[in-house]
């Protein structure tokens, strides 16, 4: 069983923060560098956020859940999934509270966070169960 609660408490908000930053950085860069009218820049920015948001969410949750579960004795996937779901819920709340329309960004962001969390758990389990290479004395 054993969810690593303390690590989750730290990793969940940090993962969401990193995911949002990972979405906004390329979106903002696009906005500032695209030579066009404001309407076109906003549209382009939102297009970038559409792929950057889920991608950043996946990577952030992958890393976050790997950190949470990497030294766990058991339940790596469960820890990873817990992180992914928790981050997805926070993201959903943020999106709904900000007034984002129900659409691809919302669905993909949530799905990517859950998937990233689970994959991070799997990754941590694999690294935990892979044979340790003993140092060779020369």
């Amino acid at each position: 069983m054993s969810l690593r609660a303390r690590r989750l408490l730290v990793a969940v908000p940090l993962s969401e923060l990193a995911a949002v930053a990972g979405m906004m950085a390329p979106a903002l860069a696009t906005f500032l560098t695209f030579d066009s009218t404001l309407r076109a820049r906003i549209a382009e920015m939102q297009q970038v956020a559409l792929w950057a948001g889920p991608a950043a969410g996946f990577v952030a949750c992958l890393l976050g859940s790997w950190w949470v579960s990497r030294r766990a004795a058991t339940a790596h996937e469960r820890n990873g999934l817990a992180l992914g779901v928790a981050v997805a819920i926070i993201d959903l709340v943020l999106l709904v509270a900000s007034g984002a329309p129900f659409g691809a960004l919302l669905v993909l962001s949530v799905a990517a966070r859950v998937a990233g969390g689970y994959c991070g758990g799997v990754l941590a389990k694999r690294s935990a169960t892979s044979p340790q290479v003993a140092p060779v004395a020369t």
Partner: protein
Amino acid sequence: MRSRSRICPALIGLGCLCVSGAAHAHHSFGTFDLNRNVEIVGTIAGIDFVNPHAWLRINARDAGGATVEYRCEMRGATVLRRSGWTPEMFVAGQPITVQGAPDRIDPLACYVNTLVLADGRTLDRYTQREVAEPTAATFARMPSGVPNLAGDWAVEQQLMTDPRGRDGSLVPASAAGEFDPGEVPQFGVAIPGGEGFGPLSIVGLLYRLSVGAIAPDIFPWLDPAVELTERGAAAVLQGNQHPQYRCQPTSILVNWYLETLVNRIVQTDDVVTIEYGQPGLSRTIHLNAAHPAALERSRVGHSIGRWEGDVLVVDTVGFLPGMLGLEVAHGEQLHVVERFSLNSDGTVLTREYVATDADYFVGEYRGSDITPRSPLPFVSDACNAELNPVVTL
């Protein structure tokens, strides 16, 4: 007088993110600090009833007891008239109390939120007094059978959801009553710089922009979405250089709706003339004619029109280079096609337009506007750029 910037200060650095941005500079709070209050009790010294903002002058005592002249910024002269306000309401010598927001730079300037007149009446910044309804055309068609576009036309006013103008967002006047004071419509945005707006608000604004929680279409004065060429980007005039902020005409497209001024159309069988509320801007559309071989270029170009059923199609070329919109420049190759049509009872004029100039922007600059007949007769109020300079903080 120092700066009375209408360009939102924080977001201009982010590329005019402030939705109106450098664009409708009058729709941000500039140098006024909406998180502070000021009350000036005195007598009216006079009023400068001008666009893009009118200024009320008040004689009042300062902190040291000396009588000084304060200046407080109101909405523009034409939108004030459209809201039932007149300069005659402000008689020199009458007592007045101004509640507003102070200027960050000039201690003798303020932004009007509420006026308390001598008889005790209060007027909020966006108070609508005795606003008449638009009337239908005297006759909907010309004797020749084509629609009669003649009359006075004004795009719907935008009012802030907070009648005092301290926070909230701009919404069409017809919808303003649906909002609580200071409320922001769905997919809208609070005007940057309003009451309670801080650094965190900028982060929130960027986030909401990224996730599609703000719809650019909610701001009717923004240019259509077009990509600028290298030459086009270099030619864009910013801040004080932009004709809009120098009280000069910008173009035949945007001056129809900018500042929601009142425009006038006069129509005969051969000619349609459009006089814009923007001083110094009028154009003639020659019906069933051709462009001359030798064009004399001007800012309004040479317009020819023809009726396609009930739609007046106007083709304009022969422009002098300048600004087409708030963020888009054009050269001599600009070509504009407008399509004017009336609704069934002749009370609403719809204009669709397409502009092309491959040297300055990619593809088409395409937009439309819907303009009701104006209850306020055509008026071309003076525009005073010196009273309303643009300053970027």
